[in-house]
């Protein structure tokens, strides 16, 4: 049963959530839209294109302390970081919710990542269906949809005078305020998106590994980390100790396969030395290695990398180029 | 209860003149503020601006770079490069919000023990007047 909340209902509800939870919601920061913990409901923006960074940072922060090292009289104690608060992420689009579901693959597989798992189980996801899509969006080609409720606890869909409220999970039901009326209006069809071929190409990935295409594509690649850091599913990280004024912490931070030194060992050995090999890793991890391990492609079609790549390496174009290469190969 | 604020100073002193000058200040018991941690470098020209920025990042209140007087460099011209580099760096750090008074570049010869002691007292007093740096 779908419920209905007026905009006032929604704001009152958010306000009440703020009393009990950390609420992470899209806010404006300078020219950016970011998911950030809010202190009051007025900060929240409801109408936005995909945020600059995806909400993955709540579960895998750009930087976090895994544990700190305390020394007392020669005795060493390792003090783990604890997750202390329940949280609600409000307003995430279905593609971003799918991104989180995909990250569950590596982080919840045994041995589970304790911090990730704690945050995941103590965070409720309140999704916001997309009434509009952007030219860079292609979620429907990646197994999601602008109105996909499958990876959130509650899905909100904006209608003329308020929001349709779908409680998807028990966790979502428990979070909702009492007394919302049933929604009896009509459902709006989700906006349409252009299709990007995916499945056919994925099956051909193995044959394309040594294709000169990768070096050609990498010619213009700058090997910055923008695509990986804006991506809702890129999850590579680095770990090192951080010391400051005698305080020692083991820290992990985002890292990307495009970085120099990503696969370089201390002994000086690096399996990937050319630009093409580095760039290829990004696409193979998304479209071959990840699916082999977790049965789904590591792309949700949010379009952030398309939007932000300084040299227009467009993942959709890569997929269709690969399709052309495959066809040319099978044709010859 | 008020603990008197003690600014933390890092001093990069060239081996040939300024380090010897500091040494002289010490051995002749001229007495200078103990807030300084001295790092001996072969030449003031060895001091990479990165060293200075890193000191500030890790909580130094002031940084002193000191070498031979222009014309007296053991390597002939190292300190002329120092002069150019740090003239620009002081401006730049000031622009980034680290007051230029916190970075001093001084020429101190091996015989200027007294001058070293005096300028350090002066520097420390100035830093005390500026007060602790705001977080980072």
């Amino acid at each position, binding site marked *: 049963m779908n419920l209905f909340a007026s905009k006032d209902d929604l704001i009152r509800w958010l306000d009440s959530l703020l009393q009990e939870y950390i609420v992470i919601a899209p806010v404006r*920061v300078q020219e950016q839209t970011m998911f950030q913990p809010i202190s009051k409901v007025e900060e929240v923006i409801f109408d936005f294109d995909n945020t*600059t*960074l995806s909400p993955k940072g709540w579960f895998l922060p*750009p930087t976090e302390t895994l544990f700190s090292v305390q020394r007392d009289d020669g005795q060493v104690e390792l003090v783990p970081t604890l997750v202390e608060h329940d949280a609600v992420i409000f307003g995430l689009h279905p593609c971003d919710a799918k991104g989180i579901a995909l990250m569950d693959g590596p982080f919840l597989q045994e041995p589970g990542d304790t911090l990730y798992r704690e945050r995941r189980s103590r965070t409720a996801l309140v999704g916001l269906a997309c009434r509009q899509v952007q030219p860079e969006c292609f979620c429907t080609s990646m197994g999601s949809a602008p109105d996909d409720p499958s990876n959130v606890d509650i899905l909100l869909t904006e209608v003329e005078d308020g929001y349709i409220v779908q409680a998807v999970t028990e966790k979502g039901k428990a979070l909702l305020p009492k007394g919302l009326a049933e929604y009896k209006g009509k459902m709006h069809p989700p906006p349409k998106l252009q299709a990007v071929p995916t499945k056919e190409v994925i099956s051909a990935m193995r044959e394309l590994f040594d294709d000169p295409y990768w070096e050609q594509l990498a010619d213009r690649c700058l090997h910055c980390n923008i695509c990986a850091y804006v991506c809702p599913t890129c999850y590579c990280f680095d770990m090192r100790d951080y010391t400051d004024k005698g305080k020692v912490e083991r820290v992990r*931070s985002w890292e990307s396969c495009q970085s120099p030194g990503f696969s370089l060992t201390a002994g000086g050995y690096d399996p990937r030395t050319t630009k093409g090999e580095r760039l290829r890793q990004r696409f193979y991890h998304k479209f071959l290695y990840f699916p082999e391990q977790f049965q789904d492609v590591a792309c949700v079609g949010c379009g952030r990398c398309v939007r932000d790549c300084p040299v227009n390496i467009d993942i959709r174009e890569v997929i269709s180029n690969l399709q052309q290469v495959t066809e040319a190969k099978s044709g010859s | 209860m008020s603990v008197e604020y003690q600014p933390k100073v890092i001093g990069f002193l060239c081996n040939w003149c300024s380090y010897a000058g500091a040494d002289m200040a010490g051995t002749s018991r001229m007495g200078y503020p103990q807030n300084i941690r001295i790092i001996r470098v072969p030449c003031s020209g060895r001091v990479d601006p990165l060293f200075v920025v890193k000191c500030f990042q890790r909580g130094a209140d002031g940084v002193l770079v000191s070498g031979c007087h*222009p014309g007296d460099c053991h390597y002939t011209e190292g300190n002329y490069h120092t002069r150019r580099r740090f003239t620009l760096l002081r401006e730049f750090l000031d622009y980034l*919000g680290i007051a230029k008074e916190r970075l001093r570049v001084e020429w101190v010869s091996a015989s200027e023990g007294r001058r070293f002691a005096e300028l350090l007292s002066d520097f420390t007093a100035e830093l005390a007047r500026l007060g602790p740096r705001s977080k980072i």
Partner: protein
Amino acid sequence: MDMDLIQQIRDKARNLLEKGTVEGVIGYERAGDGLTSRPLFAYDPSATERLIFDETCAHNLVKYLLDKKGKKMAVVVKPCDSRAINLLLNEKQIERDKVFIIGVGCPGMVETNWNHKSETLQAKCRSCQLSKPLVYDFLAGREVERQAEEETYSDITETEAESVATRREFWLEQFGRCIRCYACRQVCPGCYCPVCFAERLEPLWVGIRIAPEENDLWHTIRAFHLAGRCIGCNECERVCPVDIPLSLLNRKLEKDVKELFAFEAGLDPEEQPPFATFKKEEMLEFGG
């Protein structure tokens, strides 16, 4: 679009490839959005038909010459980008006889994002005084009469007029947004150290934390390493995904270097850069 200019670029590029004068041509093609542009590497004469040039071709293609060392390449160069050629010649990073420079007369670049093109000229173009590239082997199009505003550095002087504390707060807020994607470094024609200080582990300069205090060190040193070397293409600011105003750093140094040393990077490949030289009788007020 100036089709005449584009045809000249295409003809020249085709000619160079057909004759084998160069192995490849680095130019611009239309981006996937059908509106903006992106770098194109043409190795086959047929690919030269994709070359374009218009007010969206902001990328400084000179950076790519560093990836193609040892190969003879042609590159499409705007007047501002030509300063990067001079910089890299001065620093012995490229060889003049390995580069064929297709210079272009430039109408100025507009602000663009993927699938968005504004009418607004980029700030660097509003004060650009160059009517044609400083160095080229072939000039496509015409010299452009410039009615440039004078570079007054008004935004810099405004920042300078603030208090030290206000500036500190401002910059920490800006650097606090940084996600250390290093796009500013990767796009910069002056950033080519084999191992960047930011990646160096011994000694370790930039800590692993992506946090304001580490980002602050990164941005301070990134900018300062380019003091007297930044040629003002402003690509770093254009590519920054979180809009950190990097030109406020680069142009502050540009302004000070001009005032202190009467030097501008990339104007003359033979001129000694400010940190490679000195005058004995200068800055005598400095130090004791």
